[in-house]
């Protein structure tokens, strides 16, 4: 399977862990990712007002470039995915707007399939095949965290149920992880408010992390670099009110996948995490190692 890969700005700089682990997983699972040549910023968000054609030019340029290659476009960052998928939909449904953008970019638009890497894993490869490829299942209680833009708006994204999604749970179960039933998984982490009103983000993050800790999660798993950053940096230091520690590492789904497939690219990059997941991951690996030893002896 060959796909056009759009990494986006953050994956080249501050979420290298996500990019690196995803590339390794794709290669191991037989998916060839061809990076879109000379890609540019997607614009981060789809304009929510009716007369903002200018803000659609960023994603439109990317889609037009991908259209030339003729393969579906795959992304990892939630913001890029939401923006590109909705832009494709808007261009296909709104004839007037499409003509305006086609005139400006001097190119016809026919439509591009926009996929999230999770969809490639589910629909292109399948959970069963992934389950068979797992060499080192991680025995860590994981809480999947979807955040806002991966699933919403449902009519335009349609990846999974916006209120009761299962795609990440299915992946993590296939990888052999005990999955926490996490009701706060579609809550918002405060998004870009961390730049403008960090105290608001801190409160959003507190509610999410406290719930996860109370439910016994050892690690939060996410797809979005901004969710990862907010949940990691803005969680409160020290133990929470119920005496349990409030420090919860936050890692990407591709890192869990890579580690389960036995790829060292799954190990998180230290400086991308304030709450280091390394101790937990190496302890899990050690435990697994000793388990294997016992099995061999018996």
């Amino acid at each position, binding site marked *: 399977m060959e796909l056009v890969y759009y990494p*986006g*700005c*953050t994956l080249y*700089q*501050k*979420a290298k862990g996500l990019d690196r682990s995803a590339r390794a997983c794709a290669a191991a699972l037989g998916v060839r990712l061809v990076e879109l040549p000379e890609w540019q*910023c997607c*614009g*981060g*968000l789809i*304009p*929510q*007002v*009716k*007369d*903002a054609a200018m*803000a659609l030019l960023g994603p439109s340029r990317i889609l037009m470039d991908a259209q030339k290659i003729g393969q579906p476009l795959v992304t990892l*960052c939630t*913001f*890029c995915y939401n923006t590109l998928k909705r832009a494709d939909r808007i261009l296909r449904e709104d004839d007037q707007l499409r003509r305006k953008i086609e005139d400006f970019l001097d190119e016809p638009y026919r439509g591009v399939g926009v996929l999230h890497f999770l969809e490639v894993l589910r629909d292109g490869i399948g959970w069963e095949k992934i389950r068979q490829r797992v060499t080192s299942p991680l025995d860590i209680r994981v809480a999947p965290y979807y*955040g*806002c*833009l991966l699933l*919403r*708006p*449902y009519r335009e994204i349609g990846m999974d149920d*916006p*209120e009761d999604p299962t795609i990440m749970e299915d992946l993590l179960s296939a990888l052999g992880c005990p999955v926490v039933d996490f009701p706060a998984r*579609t*809550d*918002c982490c*405060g*998004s*870009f*408010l*961390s*730049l*403008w*009103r*960090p105290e*608001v983000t801190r*409160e*959003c993050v507190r*509610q999410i992390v406290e719930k996860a800790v109370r439910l016994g999660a050892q690690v939060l798993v996410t797809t979005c*670099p*901004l969710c990862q*950053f907010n949940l990691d*940096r803005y969680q409160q230091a020290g133990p929470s009110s119920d005496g349990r520690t409030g420090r919860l590492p936050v890692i990407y789904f591709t890192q869990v996948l890579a580690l389960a497939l036995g790829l060292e690219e799954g190990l998180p990059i230290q400086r991308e995490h304030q709450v280091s997941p390394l101790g937990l991951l190496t302890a899990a690996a050690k435990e697994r190692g000793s388990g294997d030893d016992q099995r061999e002896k018996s």
Partner: protein
Amino acid sequence: MRVITTPIRGGKKVPLRLPESRPDRNGIQEIEELSGQNLFSCYQCGKCSAGCPIAFAMDLLPHQVIRLLQLGLVSEVENSSAPWYCVGCLTCMTRCPRGVDVSRVMEAIRSLLLREGKEDRRPFLLPNEIVAEMPQQASVSAFRKLSL
């Protein structure tokens, strides 16, 4: 000044003060056109405010914003902090039984204020160490939402 109360926030009544000003029909129409939403679809169930993850930081709750607009009190909404705190996570539009996308209404209010030059909340005064660590997507979207 008229005062109406809406039961929300832990069952407590939150007073909503209404001034005796005339309804601003042009203002409502402009917001409806920009957002593509029918403000009068809303029947004030409060589902948007109940699910809004940022409601605790807003001076008006999302359903109160819609109610004020229905009453034509556009300037009240323009002076509120609520549109600036809305990050567009779309929890409200996912759950609205009347199909109103409140985040589009919030963006329309923000856009009007930005275009008229009345407001600009771009985040300039940030400590460098935060900016250095923050994922780029945060800056891109913050500037898109909070400035023109």
